[in-house]
């Protein structure tokens, strides 16, 4: 109870800084979930999409196309799946059918076909492509898939590979600096108060108890903020850094 009242008393002195210090780490943890998406969008905005390996295929009908699209998105190495616009593909199909002088009955079934473009997110080998192809053929069962050639674009190492990390690191450093900026006045206030309590009350080892309590309160508030899943590793690193900051200054006033 003493420690709770003590922290509440300290909170009332610097409420804004306390809120930032408690909430910001959790914002950082939460941002780890959405950061990759945000960073990807920013990097695409800055340098555009990088060409990747892909393959085109034509399905016998729209139902099969939708089914394959759902299944293929769940596979590894897949960056995205695009369905060709029907109007766009229909014109090209009709022109080809006319050139080949195919009957109108056959034309109807051909016009039902839907095209898909599967892009891969890494450099996929021919063997891996054959595995994916075989898997999709098995899923299609009796229905027909016409495969286009596998376009293999080799991955070229360039500065854009490091841009994601640079952006990611910059955001984390800015957040951590904001946290440090708000944390030090709190640390100063806490360490001064604890020093005085140890000097003017018959208590000992107040400092580690207060900081343990502070971290417990922080974790409890954080769990409430995040709701459920918590990337413990990242928070563990954060607590370690924080503890190092806290331990560094034991006495807030200089000795005589």
């Amino acid at each position, binding site marked *: 109870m003493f420690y709770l009242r003590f922290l509440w008393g300290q909170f009332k002195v610097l409420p804004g800084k306390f809120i930032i210090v408690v909430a910001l780490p959790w914002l950082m943890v939460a941002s780890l979930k959405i950061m990759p998406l945000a960073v990807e969008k920013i990097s695409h905005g800055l340098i555009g999409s990088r060409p990747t390996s892909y393959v085109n295929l034509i399905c016998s009908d729209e139902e099969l196309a939708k089914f394959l699209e759902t299944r293929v998105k769940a596979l590894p190495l897949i960056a995205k799946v695009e369905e060709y616009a029907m109007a766009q593909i229909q014109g090209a199909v009709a022109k080809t059918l006319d050139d080949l002088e195919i009957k109108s009955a056959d034309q109807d079934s051909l016009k039902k076909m839907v095209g898909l473009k599967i892009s891969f997110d890494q450099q996929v080998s021919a063997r891996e492509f054959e595995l994916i192809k075989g898997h999709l053929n098995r899923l299609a069962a009796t229905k027909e898939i016409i495969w286009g050639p596998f376009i293999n674009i080799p991955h070229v190492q360039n500065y854009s590979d490091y841009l994601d990390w640079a952006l990611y690191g910059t955001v984390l450093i800015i957040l951590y600096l904001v946290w440090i900026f708000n944390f030090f006045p709190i640390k100063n206030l806490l360490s001064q108060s604890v020093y005085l*309590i140890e000097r003017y009350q018959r208590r000992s080892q107040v400092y580690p108890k207060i900081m343990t309590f502070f971290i417990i309160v922080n974790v409890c508030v954080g769990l409430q903020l995040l709701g459920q899943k918590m990337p413990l590793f990242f928070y563990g690193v954060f607590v370690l850094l924080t503890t190092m900051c806290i331990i560094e200054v034991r006495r807030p*006033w200089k000795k*005589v």
Partner: protein
Amino acid sequence: MMKDQSSAALGFNKSKIRSFTQEQGTLNTAPLLLELSNVSHSYATVSALKGINLQIRGGDFIFVTGASGAGKSTLLSIISGELPPSHGSISHGIDKLFVTQVFQELKLIDNLSVKDNLRMAHDPTVYKNDNEFMEVMTEMGKVFGVYDALHRKVSSLNGGLKQKVAIMRALLPGPNLLVADEPTSALDFESTKKLYDVLAYYNSKRALSIVWASHNRELVRKFSGKMAHLEKGILVYSGHACFI
């Protein structure tokens, strides 16, 4: 004026050391609180204290005098336990000796109110509950003349009021020994005299031992108590102030 909360905490019965005081030669049955034996202290290569021998007993009122740099603050820091001596030993005469200090630089938290600063001295082993503490704090505030300033921030107080707050904070937890380093440097003589009267009351009625450092020997002469005079880190005189 205040509830007698400190007498039990003093624990005087635990150590009845009967001895003659070195300086007066009279029989002294007061319990020994603290004894410094051949204590020296150095800051790097600079020697601040050399071979200090000093006994502090229950009910002592000791003025430590000396020019600036004579080692008063160092001696007080060693007595209060803030600073370990480089050489020599310190022994306690009673169990759980509790020493509070009025620091020269006061060590008040500027952005807290006077009341919140004083709350740092709310020792639960002395006060049963918050009401009891507040009652004592309010009464003491009236005696020291800081009652009207209890809700003000420390940063808005003048030097004299700050010193009074620091002294109140040191008295509130009912210590066995109060160590005050130049506690009246920002006060005029009248205020200093009043403060001395309050401390003398605690000294005689509550058996609170007090060690008061001052560079102003003329001021100290006007009060009654023992005196320890330091010169260049050496204790050159200890005895009753009235004999000087």
